[in-house]
């Protein structure tokens, strides 16, 4: 492929991914409301459009039309910058996650990911950790005590979970011997999914991902009953929408990342042996990836409406005294597996 073709394909993929991302964020909000309603014996939004399917757009228009309020005590520049960071991080992280095997179209072999970089996993970890700056800065620059408390909680939470998250990923990296997401997916051939090989690592990573995306039971930076709205108490209109969008986009990224690391990525076990045409196989694999992601996203929503929030000290306890040792045990477990069975 010539350079021009590479750029064109990359641009098409970027536009598609960002578009799909934004639409799916909108529908995540819709499904969040639906799932919450179902869990409480209600019906949920069903007025705007067929079965309420246009509800997210109605919500968006409402947010656009709201007045943008900046408090007097706020640091205006940082107050504006914070939601931008949140959105930027949320929308750019997806670049390195593969959502399918190579697509063979005519003479072109198109890898189904935007950037096949060698340090993909590090890139994701780095960017998702950047997201915490958005929250901390938002809390700090708002000039309100509740926002500040939310921001502080967010950074404390990040420190205690990033560690166990990193160690859980180390278990995966030991097996795949590469930081390339594509290589990690390929290392989980057949049923050799990391979720089955290292269940402890899977659980610690899952829990850390919940903490990383600020979802319940770890939504301490928001904590509506205690902190009004936490870090976004003083935000309104589109700046608030930015945080809102980023939260759901982060959920999508987190579930895509979990699928890549632990659930075999886009692979359908032993599909190669069925002898399907390459294009059909690619489409099926892409479908499998979306299906796994959808299940995980439902799990995110399901957990939110089932579990109560952790207390601040309980969260620290869990992070440092439970998750951290567990992720270390996981590394030892994987090392033993490699030593004995030579996986």
């Amino acid at each position, binding site marked *: 492929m010539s350079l021009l073709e590479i750029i064109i394909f990359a641009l098409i993929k970027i536009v598609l991914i960002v578009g799909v991302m934004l639409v799916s964020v909108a529908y995540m909000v819709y499904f969040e409301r639906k*799932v919450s*309603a*179902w*869990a*409480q*014996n*209600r*019906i949920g939004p*069903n007025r705007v459009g067929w079965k309420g399917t246009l509800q997210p757009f109605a919500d968006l228009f409402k947010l656009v039309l709201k007045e943008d309020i900046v408090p007097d005590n706020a640091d205006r520049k940082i107050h504006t910058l914070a939601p931008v960071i949140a959105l930027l991080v949320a929308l750019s992280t997806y670049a390195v996650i593969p959502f399918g095997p190579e697509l063979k179209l005519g003479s072109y072999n198109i890898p189904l990911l935007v950037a096949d970089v060698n340090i993909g996993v590090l890139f994701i970890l780095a960017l998702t950790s950047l997201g915490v700056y958005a929250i901390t800065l938002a809390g700090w620059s708002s000039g309100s005590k509740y926002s500040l408390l939310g921001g502080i909680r967010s950074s404390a939470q990040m420190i205690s979970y990033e560690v166990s998250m990193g160690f859980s990923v180390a278990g995966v990296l030991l097996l795949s011997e590469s930081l390339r997401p594509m290589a990690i997916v390929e290392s989980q051939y057949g049923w050799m999914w990391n979720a089955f090989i290292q269940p402890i690592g899977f*659980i610690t990573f899952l829990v850390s991902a919940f903490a990383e995306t600020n979802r319940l039971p770890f939504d301490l930076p928001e904590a509506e009953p205690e902190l009004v709205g936490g870090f976004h108490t003083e935000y309104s209109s589109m700046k608030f929408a930015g945080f809102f969008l980023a939260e759901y986009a982060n959920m999508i990224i987190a579930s895509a990342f979990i699928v890549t690391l632990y659930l075999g990525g886009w692979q359908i076990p032993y599909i190669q042996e069925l002898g399907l045409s390459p294009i059909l196989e690619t489409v099926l694999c892409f479908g499998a990836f979306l299906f796994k992601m959808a299940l995980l996203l439902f799990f995110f929503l*399901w*957990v939110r*409406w*089932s*579990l109560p929030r952790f207390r601040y000290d309980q969260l620290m306890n869990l992070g440092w005294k439970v998750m951290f040792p567990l992720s270390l045990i996981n590394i030892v477990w994987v090392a033993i597996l490699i030593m004995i069975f030579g996986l």
Partner: protein
Amino acid sequence: METNTKRRRIKDLSFWEKIYIPEIVKGLSLTLRTMFKPKFTMEYPEVKFDPPASYRGRPVLVQEDNGVERCVACGLCARVCPALAIEIQEAETNLEKERYPEKFEINMLRCIFCGFCEEVCPEEAIVMSKDYELAFTNREDAIYGKDKLLVPVKKLQDRIDFLRQYK
């Protein structure tokens, strides 16, 4: 004698409770089961709530079959009303009952639906209806005169029977 220190406190968790995961699974399965249960929501403008006879909706005046109200304008309801929502102007007629309210107004912005007027009425002339759809766009509309208050006795039979039984 047994000391308190050895007793197991209720808030002490067992081992299985301490490792969270079985408890989390229990909680998740409960919500999942709830998701498939029938919904409680009543889709209001399409489906309307039909209240029982004991329901205290907006107070109305009972209108006999011959088109005359039962009210004799004694003023007890206006006297007992804690929110001072009722205003009556009495007058006399040549009918058998001699007295009737020339003006009977209930300010629905003031009414608190306590039902005292109904309780105190010696003639069973003012009763609480099942009507709960009360919306106005200005204060003038909220003052209900006789035109809105008079309701044929047939429509209120439910409530009147209820009152005879329990009042």
